[in-house]
């Protein structure tokens, strides 16, 4: 079933993030993807995540499609101007990709090509708007297309943003621009997220709660120090530190959060960063 129909069905929808390889050997990438086949509604293919160069998210989305796995093609604003964005996005549709996730993208200074030019010709709101325009059959300059796109448009929201109100304004702009589903930044404060979800429910959009697999206490510390917009609470770090097997504990925590989300949310988006085989264990917990 397509992600769109899954979301419309009212069932709890699980998607998972999958990261393309650095290089052209896709065997491991596909191996991990095959593990997830049939167990998740869609696989999100990251676009040079954290500004680190990888195989293209468009090519990897197409490879997933060929395997019978529903892809979500992630597109950031960092690497392409409006010409390249439009042609790649239409290209994805022509190849059979039906879901797209529009993001701003990390700055190049966070990645492995710090001397690159950061493009950001559009921002994420304008990118959502652009995809919506292509869906309606014209390009950004209102010129008609010979064949439009019909994407399910997703965007990102950070319910734990501090301060919240500027993020709230941007969230509502993304909805106005045409986003119909949202993936959240990694969640750790479930009570806070419940409040966000109650607010978000007044809009006609689906929300997938972001679950990030904590592989170790060290990773949690790293996230708190280095990764913007993510804060792991001390209680979870203590829990990880006390565990004999920290990865096992991380899977347990994510499984617990997933159960919690199932009680009220539309779905979950699992980010296991390089540890995609753990996704099944989180789902099975």
């Amino acid at each position, binding site marked *: 079933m397509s992600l769109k129909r899954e979301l419309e069905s009212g069932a709890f929808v699980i998607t998972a993030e999958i990261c393309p390889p650095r290089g052209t050997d896709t065997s491991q990438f596909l191996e991990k993807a095959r593990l997830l086949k049939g167990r998740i509604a869609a696989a999100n293919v990251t676009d040079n995540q954290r500004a680190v160069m990888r195989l293209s998210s468009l090519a990897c989305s197409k490879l997933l499609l060929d395997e019978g796995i529903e892809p979500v093609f992630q597109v950031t604003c960092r690497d392409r101007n*409006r010409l390249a964005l439009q042609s790649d996005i239409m290209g994805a549709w022509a190849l059979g990709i039906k879901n797209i996730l529009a993001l701003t993208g990390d700055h190049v200074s966070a990645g492995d090509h710090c001397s690159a030019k950061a493009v950001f010709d559009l921002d994420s709101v304008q990118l959502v708007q652009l995809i919506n325009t292509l869906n309606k059959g014209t390009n950004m300059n209102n010129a008609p297309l010979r064949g439009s796109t019909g994407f399910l448009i997703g965007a990102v929201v*950070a319910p734990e943003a501090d301060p919240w*109100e500027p993020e709230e304004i941007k969230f509502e702009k993304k909805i106005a621009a045409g986003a119909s589903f949202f993936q959240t930044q990694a969640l750790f404060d479930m009570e806070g997220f419940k409040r966000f979800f109650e607010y978000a429910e007044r809009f006609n959009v689906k929300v997938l709660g972001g679950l990030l697999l904590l592989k170790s206490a060290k990773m949690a510390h790293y996230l708190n120090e280095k990764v913007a917009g993510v804060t792991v609470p001390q209680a979870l770090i203590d829990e990880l530190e006390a565990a004999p097997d920290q990865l096992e504990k991380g899977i347990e925590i994510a499984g617990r959060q997933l159960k919690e989300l199932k009680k009220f949310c539309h779905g979950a988006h699992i980010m296991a960063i390089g540890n995609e085989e753990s996704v099944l264990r989180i789902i099975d917990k």
Partner: protein
Amino acid sequence: MIITKKKDINDIAASLEGKKTVYLLGCSSCAEQCATGGEKEVREMKGSLEERGFTVTGTACLPETCYRQYVLRQYRHCPETGSADAVLVLACGAGVSATAEAAGQTQPVLPALDSMFLATVERQGRFFEGCSLCSECVLASTGGICPHTECPKGLLNGPCGGVAHGLCEVDMEKECAWVRIYARLKAQGRLHLMKKIAPAKDHSSGTRPRKVLLRNPAGPVAIVGKG
């Protein structure tokens, strides 16, 4: 004000390789205030180059080195400028290019500084970038804080997901430009401006090189009373 920083002296010496005599031109405007191209820095550069075996045939600090008329006057009134093997300019890139135009085709004109940005001066010696000279000012709807310039991603519709405790993901010592814009618009009772979707920027007016011609070039002198 245009902010400049000094190039590495070894790189400057390398760019002068094969030249024996050098004339130094400083700038008493921006570069003097940046402590990169005033009288003092020109004097220091003279010493550094002489230590490395170059002959400095003369020095001058022009009121504004980016102003071609000042540079032309310098070349006219001080023949050592034009007769040196090379001219080293301690000014911004506009100063170097104005000098290179005045020098003509044969004399190399070289930069001693790297040009950085157009600054807002907090006070003497504290310079911050507040404007990118983009040709399409949006400050009316952003509380006087430029998102093109102060947001490293130049976002126009609010903060990215990288903002943490109000700080920027690119420079964790700096407050997010959009958090500042939000706070200011809110204080002014103008938050509705942020709620409107800002369209994609029109970059066409910023196509380089840009020019402004307030005056037409002088035409032939009209002869009064004829015809």
